[in-house]
């Protein structure tokens, strides 16, 4: 992978993961810093420019490593947590909330994986019921796996943690790490899906729908149970086109090996939307959503659309596996 500049925090320059990650990258500049926030946090930087030419920052995450997930965020387990070993991703979705949340588009990787996994273990041991952990909350879990190898390490860890569930959410078709090993019932590869016309308009640089569906089928053939994430569903055309999209998805994959299906509408904190509307002045969808925010319009009644999705999906998958996020 070609990245021109890598920033490394002084305190982790000798960390094993730092050295391994650096060795996998074809870089020109290695710059040491005291703390990643010196580069990542200053406010007067431009997300769009950095997105075109991102640098990599390697750092150590201190403090709260694993967070409780929002109340409705679930795929059927009682305890739900998320964590972010990385911020930002290779792709450039127009609706991505990271553009509103972060000041920088540089890839930030926390190399102290062991601290994340230890914290996860503590939570699993503390909770009586099964606990689900969502990775890839602020990044794409698989897209940079070739350089991070985080998923590989996590899966090895979860092999011994049967009261813990790990969801690996992605749009990437980089599934080697899963293909090469025996499937685990407590690790769920989950793919975000949208119709191809939505991918064309909103999910820049991501793999096509067909490629994602092929990746799902390949994993299912390898006995993995896969999660389907229709989240966010971007409503951008007639209902018929969405109906044919759901038909295509469920006719391509093995419906017997679907772990769960989640559905979510486009949603974003108002401060993020305000910020994104400034950096994407030419995008109709963002400006439309932002105008609704400024005009204080009542949230569009999306129930009808959600009902339509549930109706279509439940033709193929049992309702007990469908979750609204």
């Amino acid at each position, binding site marked *: 992978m070609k990245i*021109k*500049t890598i*920033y490394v925090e002084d305190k982790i320059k000798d960390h094993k993961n730092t050295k391994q990650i650096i060795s996998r990258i074809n870089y020109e*500049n290695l*710059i040491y*810093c*005291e703390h990643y926030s*010196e*580069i990542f946090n*200053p406010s*007067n*930087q*431009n997300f*769009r*420019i*950095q997105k075109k*030419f991102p*640098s990599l920052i390697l750092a150590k995450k201190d403090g709260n490593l694993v967070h409780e997930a929002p109340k409705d965020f679930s795929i059927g387990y009682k305890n739900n947590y998320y964590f972010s070993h990385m911020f930002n991703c290779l792709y450039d979705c127009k609706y991505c909330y990271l553009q509103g949340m972060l000041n920088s588009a540089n890839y930030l990787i926390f190399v102290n994986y062991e601290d994340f996994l230890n914290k996860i273990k503590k939570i699993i041991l503390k909770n009586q019921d099964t606990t689900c952990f969502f990775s890839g909350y602020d990044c794409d879990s698989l897209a940079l796996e070739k350089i991070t190898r985080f998923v590989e390490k996590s899966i090895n860890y979860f092999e011994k943690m049967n009261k813990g569930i790990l969801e690996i959410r992605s749009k990437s078709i980089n599934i080697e790490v899963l293909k090469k090993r025996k499937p685990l019932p407590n690790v769920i590869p989950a793919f975000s899906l949208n119709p191809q016309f939505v991918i064309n308009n909103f999910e820049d640089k991501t793999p096509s729908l067909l490629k994602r569906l092929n990746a799902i089928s390949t994993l299912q053939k390898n006995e993995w149970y896969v999660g389907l994430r229709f989240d966010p569903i971007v409503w951008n055309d007639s209902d018929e086109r969405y109906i044919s999209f759901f038909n295509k998805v469920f006719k391509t994959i093995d419906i017997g090996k679907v772990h769960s299906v989640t559905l979510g509408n486009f949603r974003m904190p108002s401060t993020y939307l305000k910020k994104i*509307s400034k950096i994407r*002045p*030419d*995008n*109709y969808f963002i*400006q*439309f959503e*932002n*105008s*609704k925010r*400024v*005009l204080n*319009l009542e949230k569009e009644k999306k129930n009808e659309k959600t009902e339509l999705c549930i109706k279509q999906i439940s033709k193929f998958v049992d309702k007990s596996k469908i979750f609204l996020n």
Partner: protein
Amino acid sequence: MIHFIIATNSEARPLIDLFKLKKKNSNKLQIYCNQDISLTITGIGKINSAIGVIQTFYETSQKTNDCWINLGLAGHKSHKVGKIFAIRKIHDQETRQNIYPFVNSFEIDSDECISIGKENKRYNSKIYEMESSGFFNACNKFSSKEFIQVLKIISDNHSESVDFKNNEQIYNLIIRHKKIIIKFSEHMKKTQTSIFDKNQKSIDEEFLKLFKKENFTFTEEKQMKSLLKLYFTKYTSIEKNIFNIKESGHYNIKKIRNILRL
């Protein structure tokens, strides 16, 4: 616009000639301009440099997100005299602040520098100079960090040095990099226009062209501007007669909402 912030007259002269800049009437600092470029001679040191940036901003375009370049001579233990570098990390020796200018895709050697408060001939493995931290901090008030760059040309090392009193020597040291300086500036400008020219219309200007400000409450003005922004994602121009300039903000908001089906 691109603004060059330069410490001394002898460092500035090659660029004044290169870009054919004309002296501007300014009673405080020496500012030279053409339509697209300004150059300010600030005097040595980070405070002078910061003051120069602020003065330049208010005496020229007063536009946020213009491009800013600090170009000047600098020392290093071993770098060859005459070599040019883009600075990728600035360490302010007095405040201990670290600044990381954006490393863009332009192909140029880069290095770290120490911004010192007082002249010092103790060479070390970092480039040392006296302006960049003040320059960068001041520019960052007006521009995003991707549009602020520092270029340094090595003037002295542990075994040789230019004669700082010899203007011709300094002129030649800088002017030999004219191609890099031009291309580097163009690269920054291109990045800037790729981002900001897309926002085809100044919504504030459009608003004032179409309406009487006094017909709008504060909230209505915000709403109308947001709707205009939405409108211009679809259309390139707007017919004045869609609206009624005499009517209230509320009335005209309703009009545009109908067009936008919102």
